[in-house]
């Protein structure tokens, strides 16, 4: 385990701020798309691409790379922004999000952009594919790790739990799921639409290693993920509690921002807030 210095954490927080600004710019240019989830997962994706993943942006199809699957494809703007900010493609390309001919489809497609690992959007399918990749790695004695980012609401899908069961059967220590636990979905609060709690206990009952943390606290998330990586005999899940719309005050905690983009004026306000946050990070706050 590397030692995570305060300076390194601050660098990553700045990077997460870049990722959030990229999300806002791409969404306002697209004129449609999801805001809340991408913003609240900016810290997790920055931690993955900037610290946890074994990957090479110059060689996205490197066979030994860690696999990062995004199961909830609708939060693709955060993945695209993170990829651009970590060198997979120019940040200007973010402005093509959801436009005709773009590699940055409304929901990600592997055939158009190989580094996204799979095509996602229909919910509840990512962990199942991650189980397949992790099992394939195990059969071939490969040591890459498989990460799957899921939303909380897709735990309402039956297939997701088939995958949880299967991951435990094959004791896939090389598989880590991360839940974006923001408590919102399109129709409202997850606990009103279809209660998920006690979510962590459900995973424990399915024989997974369960870790919980604040998904918007860079140092805490990385420290939790590194503890997960030490578990070798069973799959792990990190319940990352996040604040929907994190970083933009008028979106935070408001489920109505699940599936809509900011308009031009709201985007200006959001970027202004994010810039102010950036200056606070630089000032050491």
């Amino acid at each position, binding site marked *: 385990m590397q030692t995570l210095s305060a300076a390194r954490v601050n660098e990553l927080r700045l990077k997460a701020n870049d990722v959030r600004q990229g999300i806002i710019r791409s969404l306002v240019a697209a004129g449609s798309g999801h805001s809340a989830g991408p913003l609240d997962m900016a810290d997790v994706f920055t931690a993955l691409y900037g610290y946890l993943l074994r990957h090479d942006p110059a060689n996205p199809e490197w066979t030994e790379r860690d696999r990062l699957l995004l199961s909830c494809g609708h939060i693709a703007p955060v993945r695209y922004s993170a990829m651009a900010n970590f060198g997979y493609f120019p940040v200007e390309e973010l402005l093509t999000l959801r436009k005709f001919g773009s590699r940055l489809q409304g929901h990600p497609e592997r055939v158009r952009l190989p580094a996204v690992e799979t095509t*996602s959007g229909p919910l509840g399918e990512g962990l199942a594919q991650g189980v*397949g990749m992790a099992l*394939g*790695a195990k*059969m071939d004695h490969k040591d890459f790790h498989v990460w799957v980012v899921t939303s909380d609401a897709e735990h309402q899908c039956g297939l997701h739990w088939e995958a949880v069961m299967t991951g435990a059967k094959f004791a896939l220590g090389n598989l880590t799921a991360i839940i974006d636990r923001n408590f919102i979905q399109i129709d409202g609060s997850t606990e009103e639409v279809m209660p998920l709690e006690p979510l962590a206990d459900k995973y424990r009952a399915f024989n997974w290693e369960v870790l919980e943390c604040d998904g918007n606290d860079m140092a805490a998330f990385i420290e939790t993920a590194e503890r997960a990586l030490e578990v070798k005999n069973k799959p792990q899940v990190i319940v990352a509690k996040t604040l929907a719309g994190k970083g933009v005050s008028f979106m935070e905690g408001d489920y109505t921002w699940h599936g809509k983009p900011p308009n031009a004026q709201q985007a200006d306000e959001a970027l202004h807030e994010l810039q102010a946050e950036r200056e606070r990070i630089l000032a050491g706050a």
Partner: protein
Amino acid sequence: MRSVEGRPDAAAEAMHLVDYRAGDLKQVPTRNGMGEGLIEAGSRDRNVLGICADLSESTRFEGFKKAHPDQYIEIGVSEQMLVAMAGGLAAVGKIPWIASYAMFNPGRSWEQVRTIMALNETNVKIAGAHAGVSVGPDGATHQAIEDIAIMRVIPHMMVVVPCDAVQTKKAVLALSQAWGPTYLRFGRDKSPVFTTEQTPFTIGKAQTFREGGDVAIVACGILVYNGLIAADQLAREDGIEARVVNNHTIKPMDEDAIVDAARACGAIVTVEEHQKQGGMGSRVAEILAATHPAPIEFVGVDDRFGQSGDPAELIEYYGMGVDAIKAATRRAYARKRATG
């Protein structure tokens, strides 16, 4: 009879068929060909996997499990998982064959098939067992008769329906080597074996099993045999000489063979153990409507569900027996004469 190149039997000889008129044909379920082919495919390439959702014996994956235990995976009753997990395995270089009854995979798992196999372009092979009403006593819940329709509309998907157990084995070997998402459809009940080791098989290449110039019977699956018997009886009883085409690849269909049959014979009968709506016959009609319109009669299940019964009586009851094929062929021939 119009001009015919060669005797009716010349095609059967060229295709190395056994004498299908003989009363003592070997009867073997097509699923056995699935099992035998998979064992051999797994020996040829260690990346070939067999994955089951609790039906290893009846889908004939049990032999593979014994022969290649390290290449076998059991995941229990979870057909959506079957497809999604296979997509992940294929993404890291495996060639997974996934087995269930066609009614459950692709019946239950269609959206995963579309997104994870086809849109995502993964090299996953579906073994769709127990297709058709010839499943028999299990009844309508287990009789997939819509599966060709829902699979052939998916871009990139290969759809293959072999005519007997020997051809099913060849199809498994060919599809294991052909890159791309695949649906192989086969049945439960014993059916006549009339192709041989020498009979050629190429994905996407239809086969003429009987020559004839009056009408063409275009069939797939175990009903190709009924098509051949019907053609012979029609020749004796009515003097109608029917070409019989084994149209085993539904997608990509051999369009040249279909157009050639329409040009040479002027009327078509399609025969499949499937709903008339949306299946192999519908694809034949799409091709001919756009190229060489000709009278077409469709033999299949007519917008109904199946039920429990013996396979043979169900085939008869739902209008896919030899007599039904003969009647449809006479109708097609009469329509051709009326318009020609």
